[in-house]
């Protein structure tokens, strides 16, 4: 019961904060709204039985990625930008597209098969780690490191001042 109330409270928070991300005029406001979304999603992961993902979400997203966003917003002094929403003529088109998207993905999700909750679920850190480092994910895991290095090299090369 308490779990249900908590879930809906978090869901409403996440959803309204997501709206704020899109509607905020200043990039900094968007960033803080996004942090709220990330934290409530992390709590929802906890409710869904994955404490490790809940914490990793905070470590990687709220702790690192959003700090990077804040840094860039401060670095470029985005407050000077006037760019708000797009031209008015775009709005109906975008909403139409979003509506179609909701319909389509919604159809898939509603039609999706949810297994009844009889099966025991072990979302503990150990179970997670066992699966992550099993043979099935070896290549993905190693590819991740290549991805990270590529991103690092790319970011360094792009951001350094050309001389």
């Amino acid at each position, binding site marked *: 019961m308490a779990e249900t109330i908590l879930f809906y409270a978090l869901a409403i928070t996440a959803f309204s904060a997501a709206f704020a991300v899109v509607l905020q005029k200043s990039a900094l406001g968007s960033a803080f709204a996004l942090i709220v979304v990330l934290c409530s999603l992390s709590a929802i992961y906890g409710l869904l039985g994955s404490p490790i993902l809940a914490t990793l979400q905070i470590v*990687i997203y709220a702790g690192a*990625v959003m700090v990077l966003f804040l840094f860039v917003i401060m670095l470029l002094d985005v407050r000077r930008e006037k760019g708000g929403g797009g031209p008015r003529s775009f709005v109906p088109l975008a909403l139409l597209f979003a509506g179609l998207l909701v319909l389509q993905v919604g159809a898939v999700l509603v039609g999706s098969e949810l297994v009844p909750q009889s099966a025991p679920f072990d979302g503990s850190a150990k179970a997670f*780690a*066992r699966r992550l*480092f099993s043979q099935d994910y070896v290549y993905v895991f190693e590819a991740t490191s290549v991805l990270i*290095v590529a991103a690092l*090299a790319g970011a360094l090369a792009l951001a350094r001042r050309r001389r």
Partner: protein
Amino acid sequence: MTASSPLPSYVPILVLGAIAAGFAILTILFSHLIGRPRSTPAKSATYECGMPPVGTAHARFPVKFYLVCVIFILFDVDAAFLYPWALVFRELGIFGLIEMALFVCILGGGFAYAWKTGALDW
């Protein structure tokens, strides 16, 4: 011992969070109520060693800070993989060690690149 606990393990954290946030808000509110705001233009100006402030503080700052933050993110991800690995490395045995060593070596390559290009020098 938590397996037998009737309370989900995250609930005390919520309680603590509420206590901490409540304490912070109450303190700020309380001091706001009893403090005596007597503001003058000179007092509420930005502090710049007593000189009249020049320009805004929101000027651009060195890209260096961005670079170090990028390197931090990528090694943060590394840590995010190391923690779960540390939990099960005994079961994985030598296979797991080689898997992680390879991962770290590839990241080390990126680190060496960052080192060589001077992103770590200030």
